[in-house]
């Protein structure tokens, strides 16, 4: 249900593309519902063809839905007052390529009816924000991918939008460019912008987003903040050191002591080499020893034996460095969500 804090509301959105060759149509978006709240950064993630860009295009009124509705600030995108308050960064920075960044920003600012004086001030401010002052006169077609993306982001900001819609903002950028773009998005977030971001670069999403919706085959298959999506940690990781200087038998002794404490354990190296049977992932009740990394991974099912395992490490001559409960990465969550979907 929409509230005063709701910036974007999508309800039961469906888009079916029909053509001569596909009279039944191809469902690009299938009953999608989601809400983006004021001040948050929401990311739609999903593999190519999952319906992310189609969703954004419907939200922006560039294409029309087969069913369902979208509202921004409680109104239809057809209303111009809504478009006064949003900014859009298209994927791959599609702007007129024979103009410079300065000319392009002046043009897009002009579409908001700003005076020449206001446009000049805005262009300066935006070029500074995206770090393009030095290259302001370079024609867009001669700009590097990173420069283009920064100009495209600047054009999305000409009206100081409350809602910023970014489609694959780091697509095609090198690691340095990706980092710069991520910093820019974080800066915009700090300035209080509501951001809807589409991406398949999960690392960047993890860095900037408050909530994530995972789309797959046009449907939202999981949604929430990262801790909600991650759920309870699956294991405890014990990091130790000092066993390697005690000689090759020390690891074997540690394994025996852990088994004696009533915990089944397999070693990562042995699993990889097939020494203890064919290589296989450790079962959910079996601890995993990685002697090279100095780690023991204790699954949730045997977490009750944590103190016994710690004692076994100490008894074997090891020193405990750290005990952590790592959360799954967005990559893990994403793969799990997709795997759980019926094929």
């Amino acid at each position, binding site marked *: 249900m929409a509230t005063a804090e709701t910036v974007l509301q999508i309800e039961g959105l469906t888009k079916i593309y029909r053509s001569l060759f596909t009279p039944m149509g191809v469902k690009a978006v299938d009953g999608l519902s989601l809400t983006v709240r004021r001040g948050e950064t929401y990311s739609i993630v999903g593999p190519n063809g999952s319906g992310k860009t189609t969703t954004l295009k419907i939200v922006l*009124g560039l294409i*029309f839905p087969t069913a369902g509705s979208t509202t921004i600030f409680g109104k239809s995108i057809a209303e111009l007052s809504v478009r006064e308050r949003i900014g859009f960064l*298209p994927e791959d920075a*599609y702007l007129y390529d*024979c*103009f410079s960044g300065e000319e392009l920003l002046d*043009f897009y600012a*002009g579409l908001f009816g700003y005076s020449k004086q206001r446009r000049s001030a805005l262009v300066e401010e935006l070029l500074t924000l995206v770090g393009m002052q030095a290259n302001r006169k370079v024609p867009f077609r001669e700009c590097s991918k990173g420069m283009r993306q920064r100009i495209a982001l600047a054009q999305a900001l000409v009206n100081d939008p409350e809602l910023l819609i970014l489609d694959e903002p780091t697509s095609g950028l090198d690691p340095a460019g990706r980092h710069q773009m991520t910093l820019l998005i974080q800066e915009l977030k700090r300035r209080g912008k509501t951001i809807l971001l589409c991406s398949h670069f999960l690392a960047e999403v993890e860095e900037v987003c408050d909530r994530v919706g995972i789309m797959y085959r046009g449907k939202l298959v999981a949604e929430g903040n990262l801790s909600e999506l991650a759920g309870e940690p699956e294991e405890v990781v014990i990091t130790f050191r000092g066993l390697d200087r005690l000689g090759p038998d020390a690891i074997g002794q540690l394994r025996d002591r852990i088994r004696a404490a009533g915990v089944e354990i397999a070693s990562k190296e042995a699993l990889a080499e097939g020494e203890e049977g064919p290589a296989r992932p450790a079962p959910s009740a079996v601890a995993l020893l990685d002697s090279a990394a100095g780690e023991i991974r204790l699954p949730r099912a045997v977490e009750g034996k944590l103190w016994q395992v710690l004692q076994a490490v100490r008894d074997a001559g090891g020193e405990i460095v750290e005990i952590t409960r790592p959360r799954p990465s967005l990559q893990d969550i994403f793969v799990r969500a997709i795997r759980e979907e019926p094929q």
Partner: protein
Amino acid sequence: MSPIILRVILVVSLALIVAAVVLSRKTWLPGIGHGIPSIWRIAKITVAEARRRRVLQAVIALVVLILLSMTFFSSVTPEEQAKMVIDGGLAAIAVSGILLAIFVAAFLIPNEIESRTVYAILSKPVRRFEFVLGKYLGALIVLAAVVAIMTAVLVGVLVALDHLIKDQAGSVFNPNLGSVVFASVMSYFSLAVLTALIVLISTVSSTTMTVISAFIIWGVGSAQSLIYGLAEKQVGATKLLLLVLYYLVPHLENFDYRFQASNFVPINLVAAAGALIIGFGYTVVVLVVASVFFSDRQV
């Protein structure tokens, strides 16, 4: 009933139908964006883009070369030379203008969609009809600049020839400048009508289909008397088809004053005004329909 009255009735009826469609569409009514400023800015960037692509410069250079080459035919009498330069010059302006109109207008909107530059514009407070009108106005300015430059060169050539030949005893070279400029202006208005129609087609079809259709419309529009004559001799479906073409396709030949200019025939201003009024009404209707179609287009 005369064909001209029928055409006026047709244009007015179409305008009423289009107005009814427009008023029935709620999405058209709330606000008109920044209206004229948005249209003007889109027009300006269309012109600037055309200028930077340097296609126009190439077309102008080619036509100027053609015009200048006409001055080398000195073996004919001054009257014949004047007639030849005026007729050939105006033909060069008309043909190059039409080719330019077809290629500029056919790519105007499809290019924006294919290169996806339209996304950053339509996500701003710009109504789709403002976008269509802005692109059309931009194309009109480009065509005006090209026709004006080519006309100026033609006038320059005629003045120079007049000056050279006046020195020869008994010469009767008549540059007929008023008629030449008038013919050129009318040629420009025919381009304006044709461009509107091409923009309409481009809102619903691919670039290739638009270009093909534009050439067909140009051909039909320039031979409407012939088509009407053919229609009168036919029966049934063929007659109906020819009449539909006659009444729907603009009569571009009504804007053609090359013959009057090169043969020193007085110009019928009433007929010209009639052609302009019908052309203007036709263009307005076509642009409204184009805007309605583009409003429904998924980009």
